[in-house]
């Protein structure tokens, strides 16, 4: 787990013990980790889906703005990723 702060250029990946997948019975995307799971609500899932170890924070924002045009998402996405980073779901590559 890195203690460095996220910046728009940070390339982010899921921490190695986390796995993102769709759960049919829950009708939700989830993050799985040792002995637990987090159920992701719609926007959270759209963000985490793009945390792939290739995209930077900026890439993720641009990608989401293309997918959901006309909405200013920047701050919400930054806040969400900050929170996910703070909780140890994601790391800076």
């Amino acid at each position, binding site marked *: 787990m890195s203690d460095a702060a996220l910046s728009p250029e940070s390339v982010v990946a899921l921490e190695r013990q986390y796995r993102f997948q769709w759960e*049919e019975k829950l009708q939700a995307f989830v993050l799985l980790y040792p002995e637990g799971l987090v159920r992701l609500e719609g926007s959270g899932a759209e963000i985490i889906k793009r945390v792939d170890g290739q995209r930077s924070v900026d890439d993720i924002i641009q990608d989401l703005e293309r997918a959901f045009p006309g909405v200013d998402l920047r701050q919400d996405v930054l806040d969400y990723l900050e929170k996910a980073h703070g909780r140890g779901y994601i790391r800076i590559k």
Partner: protein
Amino acid sequence: MAEATSGSSRTGIPLWLNAEVTFRCPLHCVYCYNPVDYARSGPELTTEEWLRVLRQARELGSVQLGISGGEPLMRDDVEIMVAEARRLGYYTNLLTSGVGLTEKRIAAFKEGGLDQIQLSFQDSTRELNDFLSSTRTFELKSKVAKLIKQYDYPMVLNVVLHRLNIDHIQAILDMAEQMGVEHLELANTQYYAWALLNRDQLMPSREQLERAEAITNQFRARMGNRCKVYFVVPDYYANRPKACMNGWGTTFLNIAADGMALPCHEARQLPGLNFPNVRDHDLGWIWNESPGFNAYRGDGWMKEPCRSCPDKVKDFGGCRCQAYMLTGDATNTDPVCDLSPNHGLITDAVARAQTAGPLVKVQPIVFRDDKNSRRLSEKKTQPETAPAR
């Protein structure tokens, strides 16, 4: 485990599947939660039967899989189970003492898609005073810890604490730091099965607990994010019961080595429930329809003081097995609750634990081994130290 799946209690999906693939174990831990009469349990499920369990449970929505035991590595087909579990989309946790975890096996687990290894620190020596100085144990742990790192698994260590080792907490923490542990669970013994037999020897005093917690907090502060530490106090020191299994039959499905399906590790002992076996029924029926799984769902079974208690939605009246073990009636309030008329059973045990001295010599300690289990199987019903109802 409760934390793992909180928030999902209303879904009624067995999100957590625990596969106790064998009761065989090279260790003889005096606090083991396996049934004391495991020696008379039927033959183990075959590989094919376990794979069928995995498929059926996945269809029901199980997603977290625990492969435990006994020592699961006593079976040579865990690799096959792991690979099938990955294919089905499980997140697979191997709960092991590390005994038998060779490089060949860990490589196969990685290849098959095992997600995490939780290493437990057992006290395998009968010379309890040598617990932490046991070179053999330390060498084994170091070797296994190295393999776990080498194969890029998070380093997760579980240490069961009790009266006889809790004063060594600093040494345990030092060892965890040296091993590069990232998640450390310091879980005080819960008094079920073998641990209930040995309860008076295992229960720490309040002073021991407070000291251990203070030292653990210093370690936490120093390590920060490098090591996440969970310190679990024995529920006997609480005045409200734990939300056992996140509610009976809501989240947790345990399949024992012999195929018996249970809503928790301990429920086998509850009388009159005739828990079904996966050899005879499919899991869909077992989870949704079987009388055993429905016995304590909801709150219709509750008596006072639970029935009218606002906390019943939080703690579900506590643990059915603990209520049965201590009071003889599984529908009673868990005596941990200070509203229970039987709470004195808890406070008496806690009072005994305050006696000075390192060891309360009320009876010889009972090791979990086949000989003792056969003896206890003959006694058949309740553990001998359970107070009369």
